[in-house]
């Protein structure tokens, strides 16, 4: 039954509304409902993953309106994997936030679930305009989460974050309406059918629209040179918000991958391979900027931001290859970098609250409470993020390098990815020794006492890091699964047939 496909959107929407209307003053109950709902979402996502693992693309027609006219949701291997990743990250972050962050402002949990609604919707939608709508749902919620807790620095960074995203949304609308003007449709499957038949005199308009669309997705994915918003925004955001934002940059990469394979794929005539010449060089530039930022960062959270940027560079290198091994490596790296990056942001938050007025600056400070588990976790997280063996970052990098061998850019990819990896390792070793080793005697009555519920939050970070360990242990079966997903993504005819051709008769939305 395909009615399950709509649940990852409807459930968070209902939970968010319920939290806002019924429980807005009762934080304890909010936490219980919110955590339960997140675990429920995880269960639904696991079920959808099991459903999608047979390689069939399943459409869901909202209100049983047939495909090019109604709202279409599509579950295939790619969207199922990313919904599952989002649900897993969400469950971890909600439990972490319930350890104290959600009490520093109002409405953390409702906004969190609205964010889930937007993210899941963006992954599942089969329509470019609904992609815009779900982007907006996600962004509105993310503004709230980013500003959670308030304070002048956060407001200042928040203004910039909102401004860049509003500009991005405007560009998105320009792109969408240009594409509509030429093709008369916005359904992705229908676009895949209609674009090869576009008249040559309209091709320039279509190219403009398509490239504008890629620019918008590149802003979301923090692809250089459109990445400058990310370090400031994520560094100013509360720790749990920054951790869950790790999935939002991935949506940009997902959207680039989806439109480059489905709409602007090799069959697209005048606009075939529209974005391909731009993504790889820009991704290499992103790698360089990210690594330089990791080395230059003066706070742990800056380093986590630039490491996130660097990982987006690696991911987009793999996406930019646009072939089977590249997409498979990109998927593996997506899962790895989301979980490891989130763990790093949460660790930066834990470290900052233990160091009193030094926060997470790389300066000499008194030794912190619970230094042993925290430093061990930082060690593991740094190894995972920088991509040293034996953790998943290393395997992801090897997959990307292996996929890049066939590409014309292969030499550049090898040189830049390996060179910047070294720089990132240096940056992390500097951060680790400054934070955990170079200490000075504690002042009398100094701050830095651990809060009571830190055990739970340490556990959450431990689970996220454990997940990267599992990723490397089960790398074999996982990459085989991702290979199948990549083959499915590269054969858009199956997607088109499922959405347009195989549309079941009216109220039968189930197969």
């Amino acid at each position, binding site marked *: 039954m395909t009615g399950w496909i709509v649940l990852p959107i409807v459930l968070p929407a209902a939970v968010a509304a319920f939290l806002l209307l019924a429980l807005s003053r009762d934080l304890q109950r909010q936490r219980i409902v919110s955590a339960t709902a997140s675990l429920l979402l995880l269960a639904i996502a696991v079920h959808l993953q099991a459903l999608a693992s047979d390689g069939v693309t399943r459409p869901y027609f909202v209100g049983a309106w047939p495909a090019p006219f109604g709202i279409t949701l599509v579950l295939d291997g790619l969207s199922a994997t990313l919904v599952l990743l989002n649900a897993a990250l969400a469950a971890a972050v909600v439990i972490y936030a319930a350890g104290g962050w959600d009490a520093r402002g109002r409405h953390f949990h409702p906004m969190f679930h609205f964010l889930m609604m937007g993210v899941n919707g963006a992954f599942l939608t089969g329509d470019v*305009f609904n992609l815009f*709508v779900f982007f*907006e749902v996600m962004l*509105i919620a993310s*503004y709230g989460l980013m*500003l959670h807790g*308030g*304070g*002048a620095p956060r*407001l*200042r960074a*928040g*203004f*910039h974050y*909102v*401004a860049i995203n*509003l*500009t991005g*949304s*405007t560009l998105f*609308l*320009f792109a*969408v*309406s*240009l594409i*509509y*003007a030429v093709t008369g449709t916005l359904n992705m499957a229908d676009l895949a059918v209609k674009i090869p038949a576009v008249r040559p005199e309209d091709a320039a308009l279509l190219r403009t629209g398509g490239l504008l669309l890629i620019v918008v997705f590149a802003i979301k994915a923090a692809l250089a040179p459109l990445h400058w918003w990310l370090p400031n925004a994520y560094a100013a955001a509360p720790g749990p918000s920054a951790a869950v934002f790790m999935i939002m940059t991935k949506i940009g990469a997902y959207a680039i991958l989806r439109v480059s394979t489905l709409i602007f794929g090799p069959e697209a005539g005048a606009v075939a391979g529209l974005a391909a010449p731009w993504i790889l060089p820009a991704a290499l530039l992103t790698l360089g900027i990210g690594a330089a930022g990791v080395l230059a960062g003066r706070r742990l959270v800056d380093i986590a931001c630039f490491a996130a940027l660097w990982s987006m560079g690696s991911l987009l290198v793999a996406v930019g290859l646009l072939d089977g091994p590249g997409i498979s490596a990109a998927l593996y790296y997506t899962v790895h970098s989301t979980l490891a990056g989130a763990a790093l942001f949460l660790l930066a938050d834990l470290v900052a609250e233990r160091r009193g007025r030094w926060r997470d600056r790389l300066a000499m400070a008194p030794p912190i409470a619970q230094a042993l588990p925290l430093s061990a976790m930082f060690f593991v997280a740094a190894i995972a993020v920088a991509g040293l063996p034996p953790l998943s970052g290393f395997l992801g990098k090897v997959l990307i390098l292996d996929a890049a061998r066939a590409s014309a850019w292969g030499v550049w990819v090898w040189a830049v990815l390996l060179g910047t990896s070294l720089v990132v390792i240096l940056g992390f070793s500097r951060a680790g020794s400054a934070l955990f080793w170079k200490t000075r005697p504690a002042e009398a009555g100094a701050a830095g006492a651990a809060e009571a519920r830190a055990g739970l939050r340490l556990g959450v970070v431990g689970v996220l890091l454990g997940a990267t360990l599992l990723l490397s242990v089960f790398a074999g079966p996982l990459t085989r699964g991702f290979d199948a997903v990549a083959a499915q993504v590269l054969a858009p005819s199956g997607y088109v047939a499922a959405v347009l051709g195989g549309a079941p008769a009216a109220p039968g939305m189930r197969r």
Partner: protein
Amino acid sequence: MEYLVASAIGLTTAVGVYLVLRPHSFPVVIGMALLSYAVNLFIFAMGRLVVHQPPVLQPEATGYADPLPQALVLTAIVISFGMTALFVVLAMRGYLESGSDRVDGRGRRTPPAVEETR
């Protein structure tokens, strides 16, 4: 009519872009609003400029006005309206908490005297 609509959209966009690049929060807010007006008109125009035609296909009709861009515009208006409201609140809170409405990273503190005269 095409030239009029096209130049109006172009001019609004140009003014919007200029204002968004200003260093104070109020012009940025106005610029964003102008950009969203421009894009709304643009979506509308992308459904072709048609007058005195029904929005649905009828057997006796000679033409029709595309209803889909109108629906898209409605969605875009609702979203941009909400966003503008949020943006205004954010600009106000930022000004009240930091004492400065500069958004280009310079002049983070206004002298107290200037602040009091406002």
